C-alpha cells in the first residue's frame, strides 16, 4: 500500500511535466496554490507624448478572490484597495467613472482568472511552468480603442504585467520579493 500510494503521488506530480502542453488550466492551478501573498512593486507608466515616465514604488498584499491592497510609498503615499465590488482609495472616495471596470480587469489579471478574461480577450500562453507568458488581445472593437494588448509573465507567481494602449502609452508593473502569507 505505501508503495502504491507513493507511486500514484509520483505519477500525479510528474503528469504535468510529461504532458506536452502546459495550458491555462495548469497555470491557474499553479497560481492557486498561493492563496495569499505579499511583496513589493514598481510601477512605470510611459506616456507617449512625453519623453519621461511616471514611476512609483510600494508594497502590495494579495488575497486570492478577496482583494488587492496597493500601498504606494513614493513619490506619494496612498493606499488603494481593490475588491471585486469596489475600488477605494485612502480617503474612501470611489473611483472616477469607468474606474470600476479598470479595477475589475486589474483584479482579474492578478488572479489569473482566465474564464472571466476570456469573455473579452483572446489568450495565448507560451513557455512552461517555470517561465510562462500570457498575451491578451481584446476581442471587441470598443475595448481595442482603449487597450492594444496586455502581457503577463511569471513563474510560481505573476512577476510582470505590461499593458499597452493604442496611443502608445504603456503601464508596466513589476512584482518582486513575493512571499506567501499563511492563514489570512
Amino acid at each position, binding site marked *: 500500500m505505501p508503495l502504491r500510494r507513493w507511486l500514484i503521488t509520483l505519477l500525479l506530480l510528474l503528469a504535468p511535466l510529461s504532458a506536452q502542453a502546459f495550458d491555462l488550466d495548469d497555470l491557474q492551478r499553479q497560481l492557486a496554490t498561493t492563496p495569499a501573498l505579499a511583496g513589493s512593486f514598481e510601477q512605470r507608466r510611459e506616456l507617449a507624448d*512625453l519623453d519621461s515616465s511616471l514611476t512609483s514604488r510600494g508594497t502590495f498584499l494579495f488575497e486570492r478572490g478577496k482583494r488587492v491592497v496597493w500601498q504606494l510609498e513614493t513619490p506619494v503615499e496612498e493606499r488603494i484597495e481593490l475588491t471585486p465590488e469596489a475600488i477605494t482609495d485612502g480617503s474612501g472616495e470611489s473611483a*472616477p467613472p469607468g474606474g470600476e471596470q479598470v479595477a475589475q480587469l486589474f483584479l482579474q489579471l492578478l488572479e489569473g482568472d482566465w474564464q472571466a478574461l476570456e469573455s473579452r480577450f483572446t489568450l495565448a500562453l507560451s513557455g512552461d511552468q517555470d517561465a510562462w507568458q500570457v498575451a491578451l488581445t481584446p476581442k471587441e472593437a470598443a475595448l481595442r480603442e482603449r487597450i492594444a494588448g496586455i502581457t503577463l509573465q511569471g513563474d510560481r507567481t505573476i512577476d510582470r504585467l505590461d499593458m499597452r494602449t493604442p496611443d502608445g502609452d504603456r503601464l508596466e508593473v513589476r512584482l518582486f520579493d513575493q512571499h506567501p502569507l499563511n492563514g489570512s
Partner: protein
Amino acid sequence: MTRAGYRRLGWLWFAILTLCAIWLGWMLRHGLPADTDLTALLPADRQAPLIEQADRELGRGFENRFLLLLGDDERVATTRALGQALQTLVDDGQLAAIDWRELDLADADPHDWMGHWRYRLLTPAWQQIIDRGDAGTLVEPALRRLFSPTARPDPVADPFGLLDTWLARLPGSPIGAADGLLTLDRDDRQWSVLIGELKGSPYDMPMQNALHATLEQFQQQHPDAELLRSGLVFHAAAGARQAKHEISTIGAASLLGVLLIIGFVFRSPRVLLQLMVPLLAGSLFALTLTLGFFGRLHLLTLAFGASLIGIAIDYVLHLQCDRAIAGAGFRLRRLLPSLALGLISSVVAYVAQALTPMPGLRQMAAFAAFGLVGAWLTVVLWLPRFTLHASPFTARLATRWWRLCQPRWRLPPWLALVGAVALVIICALRLTSDDSLELLNPSPAALMQDEQRVQQLLDRDTGSRYFLVQAEDTQTLLARLDSLDAALDRAIADGLRVEYQSLAGSVPTAAAQQANLSRVHELYGAPLDDLIRRAGLPAEVAEKARARLDTSAPLTVADWLDTPLGQYQQRLWLGETADDGVAAMAVVSGARDAETGRTLQAVAEAVGGPQARVEYVDRVDRIGALLGELRRHTALWVVLAMALMTLALVWRYRRRAWRVIVPPFGATLIVLAAFALGGVPLNIFNQLGLLLVLGIGLDAGIFNVEHARQPSAWLAITLSTLTSLLAFGMLAFSATPALHYLGLTCLIGLASVWVLVPWVRPVDPDRIHQQENEHG
C-alpha cells in the same frame, strides 16, 4: 300633412344623410382628427401648450421603451435565454432593439469628447477650494491619481484630473455591468436589466402579442425567475387583453340579452335590424355635424356621445310597440307629441351644455344633441314605412305585463317629497367626490406593483413631477435653473426627501464657465509647477499643460445635448417657446406626499418670482384637477338644464308635472344616495352615466303620463330600460374603472326609473285627458 308630403320628407332626410356620408368621407380622408389630451377639453386660455409639450417630452421614454428586471439564482443562463428570445423579436421586425449584454450600453470614453471643455467645468467644492486660496491642497490628490494603477493619467491635458472630478459629480446610471450582463445591484441582490426599444406604437397589437407570448413562455420555462416589467407597452397590452376579455363576456352577454328580449317580444328578427337603423343614422349625422362645426373631435366626446345617442332607443321602442299592438290602427300623429317632447327635453338639456365655456362639454353636448335629432328624424320619417310583421303575441304580452305591474297603491306627492328630501339629506351628508387618476387607473395591480418596484430599484421616475422653467434666453434660463438647484439643495438639506435632475448641473452659465477658467489659470500657476516637480516630470510638461488652456472652448447646451452623456438629459430641454423664450425642466423624484408637494410649490414660487417663470407641475394631480373641473362644470350645467326642463314640463303638465319628473329626478337621487351610502365617490364617469339615466328617465316619465292607459307605453318603457340596462348597466362588471362607474350608475339609475314609473302613473287618465282638453 299629406301622405305624399310625408314621403317627400323621408326622401329629403335620406338625401341629407347621403350628403352627410359624403361630407364625412371627405373630412376623414386623412384619418379622424382626434384629440386625446384632456386639456383640449378646456377653454383655450386655460390650456398650457408648454406643459403639454413637457409632458410629451418626459413621457416619450416610457412610451417607446420598456425595461425588464430579471432576478434568479441562475441569473446568467436565464438572462441569456430571455435576451435571445427577445432578440428573435428584433430579428422578426417586432422590436427595434433589445439591450442586455454588457457591451450594449458601453459608451465611448467621455475623455474623448469632453476634452476641450474641461477647463471651464469645476465642481462647487473645487471652486471653493481655489477661491479660498487653497489651490495647493489639490496637488496631493492629483499626485495620487497620477500614480494609481487604475487611473488613466494625462499630465499634459489634465494633470489635476479636472474632468474626472467633474464627471464623478454627474448622476451616473445605476445600471452597471457584471458577468457580461447589464446589471443592477440593489439590496444585496443582482438583477439583470433588459432594455427594449419599440419600433412603432406601444398599442401595436401584433407586437404586443408577440412580446406577451415570449415573456409568458419564458416564465413557464423558468418559474423561479422573478421578472419585473416596466413600460407603457405592458399597460397597453393588459388593457387590450382586458377589453378583449370583457367584449367576449360582458359584451356578448349584453348582446345576447338584448337579442333574446327583442326576439321574445316582437317575434321578428327584422325589428332588431330596425332598432339599429336610427342609432346608426343618428351617429352618422352627429359625427358629421360635430366634426364640421369643431374641426376636431376629442376621443372622450366620441365615446360618451355615442353612448348618449343610446337614449334614442326609446323612440324606436315606443313607436314599434305602439305599431305592433295597434296594428293597422297605428297613427303616428297620436304618438308624435310625446316623441317630440321626449326629444325636446333631452335636446334642451344638451343645448344648455353647449352654451358652457368648456369646449369639451360643448362638443359632447353637440354630438349627443345632433345624434338624438338624427335618430329621432329617422324613427319618425322612416320606421313607419318599414313593414312590421306584428305578432298577436306582442299585444297579449303587453296587456298581461300591464296587469302584472299594477301597483296596489300609488305614490302620493307628499310622500315623494319627503322621500326626495330624505335622499337629498343623505347625499348632502355622505356624498364624496374623487377625481384622482389613481381611481381610474385601468392597469392590473400586479403590473402597477412591478412598475413601482422597477422605478424604486432604478431610482427612476416617469417624469410625472417637474419644474417648468422659462426665460427670455438660454443664459438667463441656465442661471434660473441654477438658482432652482440651489433652492432645492437647501430644501433637501432641510429634510426634503426628493432627488432632482437638472441641466444646470451639467451646463454652467457662460459667466460661471469664464470664472471657472480664471480659477483654473490660478491652479495652473504655482500648484501645477509643484505637482510636475513632485511627479518627477520635466518642467516643460507644465508649459505644455498651460498652453492647453488656450484651446479651451465654452460648453453650450446644444454641445452638451449632443454628447453621449447629454443625450440622457435631452428630455429636460424644451428649447424655444412660442413667445420667443426658451424653456427647460428639472425632474423631481422621491417622496410623494402633500407636504412635499407644498414645499416644491413654495420653491417654485420663490425662484420664479412674481412673473412665475418657474412652475411646479405634478402631472397626476393636474389631470385629476382637470377631470374634477370637467365634472363640476358638467354637474352645474346639468342642474341648470334640469331646472329649465322642469319649467317647461310644468308649463305643459301643470299639476301633473311632478309625475313626469319623479322617474328621472328620483332615479338620479337614488343613484346619488346609493353612492353616498356605499361610499362610492362621484367622478366624471358616473356623472356622465347620470346623463343617460336622466334622458331615459325623462322619456319614461313623459310617455307614462301621456299614454297612461296604454299597455304599449308600459311595454316600451320596460323594454327601453331593460335594453339600456343590458347595454350600459352590464358595464358595472367591467374591470376598467371608467366603464365600471358608468355602468354602475346606469344599473342603479335605470332600475330605479323602471321601478318608479308605475307608482307615479296618473290615477284616472280619462279624467286627466278631459282636464287637459279644458286647459288646452
